[in-house]
């Protein structure tokens, strides 16, 4: 079910009425769960079985974490199969394995075929044609977050039913925002009465989100299209397409997030925000702190920090940034241009880290302190003026070049588009 359809509007309105005015308070979570399964099965009924199966497996394994975590703390002797870390790793392997099978197997086989072709080996493996389950990239991240937090003692145990509501909650099921378990579950325990502010805030947010999507993002589509086929476009059209796509992707996803947050609010829930004026940021680090915030914080907490974060040398932290951003790129899509997009942003962060180190040592040349990606955050934040404006523009331009890699269907196409924009190829 897509948010910008009348079907979703009718579904949401009906669920809202049943949730607040028909169901007894203790059955409200059950209403949400049933509605969420209806929402999910609307397009792909078989995938509802998959997500149900994954929920059962993850919940069952997590019981091992909760059971043996406390025993470990008490200092009880444990056998090898009773270690909570084992159950956490099992959940992570299971989730990443399922995601890889559905989302990345095609890419892996296609890449292997390409390598065999390059090596002049005349063997081709058939590429499977499975449909990627709706929202799998998002709910797999919520499963992993739950497992790690349970292991670290940050998540409390709840019954299977409440856990299923957390995973299946329909406003955030398909494309986030990626929720945090403990915050969401705490809201579930607060038995609420209907308040007009839920309706007011929820409806207003949904309408603003729809406005962003329909009035702005959708109108940008024809202007962004030349990036899909740069051979048939002029350099000027490609520059325009780059900025049009920057607007399209922001207003599209920000609009989507508004509708998700507004829909969640209708049922009295608050879910994480995703955007906070990302195009007005003064460096690439603060851009990522304010773009798709629920994903950025997930990447930080469950990839970047476990890799070592910024502990250790500058080179070590730079390596961690690069790996985390490459994985973030791969998460966005099973294609090499997404990986390169992640690496591109990773390099931006690496540059910022090295520049900061360099500047502290007093060896940075003055011209770099003027306007450069990633320098603004190193200055006093309250200074406002032309330097800040130029930093915002430079950061925005850096992000826009990245969108070419993101939107073009392949690395070759993206490279051709950039070369053509600068007049190097194509006349």
């Amino acid at each position: 079910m897509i948010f910008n359809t009348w079907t979703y509007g009718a579904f949401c309105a009906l669920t809202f009425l049943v949730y607040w005015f028909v169901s007894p308070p203790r059955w409200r979570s059950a209403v949400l769960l049933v509605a969420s399964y209806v929402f999910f099965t609307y397009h792909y009924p078989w995938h509802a079985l998959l997500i149900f199966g994954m929920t059962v497996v993850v919940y069952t394994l997590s019981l091992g974490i909760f059971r043996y975590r406390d025993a470990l703390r008490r200092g009880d002797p444990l056998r090898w199969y009773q270690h909570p870390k084992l159950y956490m790793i099992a959940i992570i392997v299971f989730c990443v394995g399922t995601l890889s099978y559905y989302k990345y197997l095609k890419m892996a086989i296609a890449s292997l075929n390409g390598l065999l072709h390059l090596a002049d080996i005349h063997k081709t493996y058939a590429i499977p044609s499975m449909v990627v389950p709706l929202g799998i990239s998002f709910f797999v991240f919520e499963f992993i977050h739950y497992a790690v937090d349970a292991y670290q003692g940050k998540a409390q145990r709840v019954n299977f039913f409440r856990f299923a509501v957390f995973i299946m909650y329909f406003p955030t099921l398909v494309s986030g925002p990626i929720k945090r378990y403990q915050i969401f579950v705490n809201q579930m325990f607060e038995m609420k009465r209907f308040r007009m502010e839920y309706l007011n805030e929820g409806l207003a947010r949904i309408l603003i989100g729809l406005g962003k999507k329909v009035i702005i993002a959708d109108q940008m589509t024809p202007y962004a299209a030349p990036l899909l086929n740069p051979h048939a476009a002029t350099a000027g059209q490609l520059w325009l397409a780059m900025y049009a796509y920057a607007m399209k992707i922001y207003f599209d996803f920000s609009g989507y997030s508004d509708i998700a947050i507004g829909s969640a609010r209708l049922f009295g829930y608050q879910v994480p925000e995703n955007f906070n004026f990302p195009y007005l940021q003064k460096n690439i680090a603060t851009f990522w702190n304010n773009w798709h915030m629920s994903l950025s914080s997930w990447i930080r907490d469950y990839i970047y920090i476990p890799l070592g974060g910024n502990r250790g040398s500058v080179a070590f932290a730079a390596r961690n940034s690069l790996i985390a951003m490459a994985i973030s790129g791969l998460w966005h899509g099973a294609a090499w241009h997404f990986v390169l997009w992640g690496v591109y942003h990773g390099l931006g962060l690496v540059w910022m880290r090295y520049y900061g180190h360099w500047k502290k040592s007093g060896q940075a040349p003055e011209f770099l302190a003027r306007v450069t990606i990633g320098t603004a955050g190193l200055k006093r934040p309250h200074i406002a003026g032309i330097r800040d404006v130029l930093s915002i523009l430079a950061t925005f331009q850096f992000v826009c070049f990245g969108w070419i890699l993101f939107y073009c269907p392949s690395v070759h196409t993206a490279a051709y588009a950039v070369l053509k924009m600068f007049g190097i190829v194509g006349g």
Partner: protein
Amino acid sequence: MKFWQSANFWHAVYSCVFWIVLVTAIVLCSSGVESKFIYTDF
């Protein structure tokens, strides 16, 4: 001070105009075109 001179009145007027314009624009811009959200493909 009369009611129509109060800040509350004008706030209500501005709000009404904003929502009417927004809903009208959504209806006009969305006529017959169904487009997927970019991130639902991920």
